[in-house]
C-alpha cells in the first residue's frame, strides 16, 4: 500500500529539479484546466535568484524597462532592507503577457514551487486572460515588444539629447502617471494606414474632378475668420480632459516630438497597469482561491504528502491573515484575505445557501456550480463592482466589520454602521467605494486654456470630502506640468457642489526644458 502511495507523489522532500517542476506543472494543469475549467495563456516559467528578484522589483516586475533613477532608488531601498532581513521577497512575480511569464525563486522548496505555479501560472494567468478590464486595456501579446521599443527609444533619446534632458521629461511624466490614464474607452481613431488611404482617395478625387475654370470664378474675398465659440474651442482640444499626460502630449505647444513620444510611452505603461490597480482584491483572490483548490485537490489525490500539505497550509494562512483593527500588525484590509474570503463565500452560497443568501443572491444561491459563477465573476467585475455586488452579510458578520467616520468638525470619531441589518448595505457601499480608483485618486482635470491669448493652462481639482491635495507635492508636480506646457499653469481646488475655490496653486515654467 505504501509503495503505491509513494509512486503517486509528484515529489519527495523539499528539493526539486526541472523534472520535478515539469511533473508539478502537469499535475497542476490537470486539475486547473480539467477540473476547475480555467482558461490560461501558455505558460513560461523562469527560475531566478534572489538578486534577480530584486532587479525585477526595481522595474515594477517587468523583465525589461527603460532606465530611470527612481528605479535605482527603489532597488537600493529594497536591497538595503532585504540585506538587513527586514523584508522577505515575494515567492513569485507574474507578468500579464502572452505567453504568461512567471518568475519563481530558486530558494523555494518543492511545495512552494507547486503553490507558486498553481497561484501564478494558473490563478493570475486565468484572471489576466479573462477579466474584461485586462482585455480592454492591456495588450498581452504586445507588451514585451512595446517595452523593448520603449527601452530602446529612451536610450536613443539619451544618446541624442543627453541624460539630463530625458530625465527631466521622465520625472515629469512619472509624477503625472496616476493622471495619465484613460478611464473610459474612447472613439477608435483611424490608424495611420487608413488615414493614408483616405488621403490618397481624396487626392485622386480632386484630380479627377479638376477643372481649371473654377480658378477664374471671382470670389467674395476672404471673409474674416469666424470667432470660434467657447464650446467649440474647448471641444477641439478635447476639454475638459482628465488624462493630463495625454493632453500635454497632444496639445503642449513647445514640446519636441521626442518629448511627446516619451510622454506617450509613460502613458501607455500607466494604462497597462491601470487594470491591476482596480483589481487587486479580485486578482489576488482569484489566484489564492485557485491555489487553495488545486493544492487541496493534489493532496486528496495523494499527489503531495501530508507534510507538504501542512507546509502549504502554513504559508497559505500567513498570506490570508487579516489582523483586526486594534492589532498592532493591522495595516489596512489584506486584499488576499478579502478576495479569498469572498470567493469562498460565493462557493458556499452556491453549494450550501441559507435563507438569507437566497434573499440576497437569488441568482446564484444554490446554483450548485460554484466554478461557473466564479469564472463569470472573474471575467466581468472589478474590485469596486465585485464588492458592491457580492460582499455577503455572512462575511460582514464573520469579519465583524464596522464603518468609522472621521469628520474634523466633530470632536469625536463616529461609528456609522456595524454588522447588523441596518448596516450591511451601507457598509458594503462604503467599502466598495474604497476600491474605486476614480474615487480614491484625486479628480484633477484640464479645464481650459486660451491658446490664442496668454496660453495659461487651467486645471481643476474637484475636492472630495474637503480633502485638499498634499500642498508641497502638488506644487512640485505643477511645476513639472508648467515645464512641459511651456507657459504658466494654475491649479484650482474647487468644491464641486458650490463651485467655491478653496485654494490656488500657480507655477511658471523654467526655461531649462527647451
Amino acid at each position, binding site marked *: 500500500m505504501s509503495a503505491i502511495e509513494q509512486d503517486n507523489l509528484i515529489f519527495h522532500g523539499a528539493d526539486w529539479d526541472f523534472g520535478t517542476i515539469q511533473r508539478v506543472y502537469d499535475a497542476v494543469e490537470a486539475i486547473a484546466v480539467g477540473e476547475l475549467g480555467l482558461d490560461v495563456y501558455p505558460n*513560461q516559467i523562469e527560475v531566478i535568484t534572489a538578486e534577480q528578484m530584486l532587479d525585477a522589483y526595481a522595474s515594477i516586475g517587468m523583465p525589461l524597462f527603460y532606465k530611470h533613477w527612481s528605479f535605482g532608488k527603489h532597488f537600493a531601498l529594497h536591497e538595503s532592507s532585504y540585506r538587513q532581513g527586514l523584508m522577505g521577497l515575494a515567492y513569485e512575480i507574474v507578468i500579464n503577457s502572452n505567453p504568461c511569464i512567471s518568475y519563481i525563486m530558486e530558494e523555494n522548496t518543492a511545495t512552494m514551487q507547486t503553490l507558486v505555479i498553481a497561484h501564478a501560472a494558473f490563478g493570475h494567468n486565468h484572471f489576466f486572460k479573462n477579466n474584461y478590464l485586462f482585455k480592454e486595456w492591456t495588450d498581452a501579446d504586445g507588451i514585451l515588444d512595446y517595452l523593448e521599443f520603449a527601452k530602446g527609444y529612451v536610450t536613443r533619446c539619451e544618446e541624442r539629447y543627453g541624460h539630463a534632458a530625458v530625465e527631466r521629461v521622465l520625472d515629469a511624466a512619472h509624477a503625472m502617471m496616476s493622471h495619465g490614464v484613460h478611464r473610459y474607452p474612447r472613439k477608435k481613431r483611424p490608424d495611420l494606414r487608413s488615414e493614408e488611404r483616405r488621403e490618397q482617395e481624396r487626392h485622386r478625387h480632386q484630380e479627377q474632378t479638376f477643372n481649371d475654370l473654377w480658378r477664374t470664378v471671382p470670389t467674395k474675398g476672404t471673409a474674416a475668420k469666424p470667432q470660434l465659440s467657447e464650446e467649440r474651442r474647448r471641444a477641439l482640444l478635447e476639454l475638459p480632459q482628465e488624462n493630463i499626460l495625454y493632453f500635454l502630449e497632444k496639445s503642449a505647444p513647445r514640446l519636441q516630438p521626442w518629448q511627446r513620444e516619451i510622454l506617450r510611452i509613460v502613458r501607455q505603461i500607466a494604462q497597462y497597469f491601470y487594470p491591476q490597480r482596480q483589481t487587486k482584491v479580485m486578482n489576488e483572490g482569484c489566484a489564492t482561491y485557485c491555489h487553495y483548490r488545486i493544492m487541496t485537490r493534489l493532496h486528496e489525490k495523494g499527489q503531495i504528502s501530508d507534510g507538504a500539505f501542512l507546509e502549504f497550509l502554513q504559508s497559505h494562512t500567513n498570506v490570508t491573515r487579516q489582523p483586526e483593527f486594534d492589532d498592532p500588525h493591522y495595516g489596512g484590509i489584506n486584499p488576499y484575505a478579502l478576495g479569498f474570503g469572498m470567493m469562498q463565500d460565493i462557493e458556499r452560497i452556491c453549494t450550501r445557501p441559507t435563507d438569507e443568501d437566497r434573499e440576497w443572491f437569488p441568482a446564484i444561491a444554490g446554483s450548485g456550480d460554484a466554478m461557473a459563477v466564479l469564472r463569470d465573476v472573474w471575467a466581468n467585475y472589478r474590485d469596486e463592482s465585485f464588492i458592491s455586488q457580492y460582499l455577503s452579510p455572512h462575511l460582514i458578520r464573520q469579519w465583524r466589520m464596522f464603518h468609522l467616520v472621521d469628520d474634523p468638525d466633530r*470632536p469625536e470619531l463616529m461609528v456609522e454602521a456595524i454588522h447588523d441589518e441596518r448596516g450591511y448595505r451601507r457598509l458594503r457601499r462604503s467599502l466598495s467605494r474604497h476600491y474605486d480608483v476614480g474615487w480614491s485618486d484625486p479628480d484633477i482635470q484640464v479645464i481650459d486654456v486660451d491658446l490664442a491669448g496668454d496660453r495659461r493652462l487651467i486645471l481643476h481639482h474637484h475636492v472630495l470630502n474637503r480633502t485638499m491635495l*498634499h500642498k508641497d507635492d502638488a506644487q512640485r508636480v505643477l511645476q513639472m506640468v508648467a515645464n512641459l506646457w511651456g507657459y504658466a499653469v494654475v491649479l484650482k481646488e474647487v468644491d464641486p457642489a458650490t463651485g467655491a475655490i478653496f485654494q490656488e496653486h500657480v507655477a511658471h515654467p523654467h526655461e531649462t526644458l527647451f
Partner: protein
Amino acid sequence: MYIIDRRLNPGGKSLANRQRFLRRAKAQIQRAVRQTAGDRDITDLDRGGEVSIPADGVREPSFRRSGEGGVHDHILPGNKRFVEGDTIDRPPGGAGSGSSGGDSGEGEDDFRFALTRDEFLDLFLDDLELPDLAKRRVATVETQGMRRAGYTVTGSPVNLALLRSMRNALSRRIALRRPKPQELLRLQEEIDRLEERGGESGRLAALREELDRLKHRTRRFPYIDPIDLRYRRFEPVSRPVAQAVMFCLMDVSGSMTEHMKDLAKRFYMLLYIFLTRRYKHVEIVFIRHTHEAKEVDEETFFNSPETGGTVVSSALREMQRIVGERYSPDSWNIYAAQASDGDNSPNDGTTSAALLRDVILPICQYYAYLEVGSDSDRMQTGFINHKTSLWQTYESLIEHGANLAMRKVNHRREIYPVFRELFRRRDAEAIARVP
C-alpha cells in the same frame, strides 16, 4: 509550457538605474560620504558602507490627497463592542486617525542605502586629481588583449567567417562554371520530353551526353570546398599600463610620538588609496630613518620603536639609492610623502636641501612634506609662528621655486582636509581664483 533557467543570466540589471540614482543625488550623497568618513577610522575607509541622505532630494512627487483635513472614513474589521452611533475619542496625535489614514507616500525620514566600496571611494576621492600628470610613463606590459586582424585560412570552427567563406565559394563556382541546379533541371526536363515523344535520337543523345558532362562537372566542383573557408583572425596586442611607486619616508626617532605616527599613517593610507584609484599598479616603499635610514616593511615601519638622532638626508639618500636600483624614473611615476615632527640635526639642513633640490625633486612627480605635531600644539601654532628646522629648510626651497608641497597637521580630523587641499583638482582651483 517552457521552463527557463535564468539564474545564470548576468545580474546587475539595475546597475544603470543605480548609477543614474547616484548621479542624481550626488551632492547629497557626497556630503553623507564625507560625514561618514569623518566618523570612520581611516583604515576602514577602503570599504563600502551605508549612508543616509535626506529623502527630500530624491522625492517622487505626485498629485495625492494630504492626510490632514477633510472627512475620512474607514472600514475596519474586528468590531468587538461598538454599535451604530457610538463615538470614539480621537487617538492622540491629531486628525489622521485610523491606520489606513496615513498617506501612501514615503515618510520624510532619511533615505538609507548601502554603497559599494568602489562607489564610496569614487565619491570620496571625487574632484581630486594627481598633480602634474605630464610625466606619466608607459612601461611594463601588464595586460594582453586580442584584436581583430583580418582573415586566415585556418582556425577553429567558432571563428568561421561565414559570409566571407560563402562569398569565396560563390566566386569559385562562378569562375569554374559549375552548372547551376536549374540548368540541370531544364536539361533533364527536355530529355524527358524528347523521350516521351520518341525519335530524334541524335538530339537526345547529344542532350544526354551534355547532361552527363554537367553532372560530372558538378561532382568535380563541390558547392563548398575547404579552400573557400576563411576564419576570423585575432592577434594579441599588449596594452601598456601606467605604474607608480610611492615612497613613504618617516622620521622614527624618539621625538615622534604614537600620535604623530598615527597621523602619518593616515596620510599614507589616503595617498595609497588615491594612487591605487589612478594607477593600475602601485608599489609602496617604506623608508624610516633616525640618523640612518633603512627600507623596511609596513609592520616595522609603523610599529617597531627606534632610537637615535635625526638626519633627514639619510632617508633621501636611501630613496635615491632605491630609485637608482629598482624604479627608473623613465618607467615609473614616483611619489614621495615625508612625515616628520620637524626635527633635524642642525648641520644636516643644507645637505638635505641640496639633495632634495638636485636629486629627489627632479625625479618625483610629487613630493609632499607633512609636518605632524602633537594634539596640544594646536593652540601654539595659532599665536606664535613657530617654525621647526626642517620646515625652515623646505620653506627656503619653495621660495627658490622648488615643486614641493608642505602642510602641518596636528589632529587627525585635519588629515582629510589637508589631503584634499594638496590634491585638489587644478582647474577647480583656477576657476576659484577667477574673481
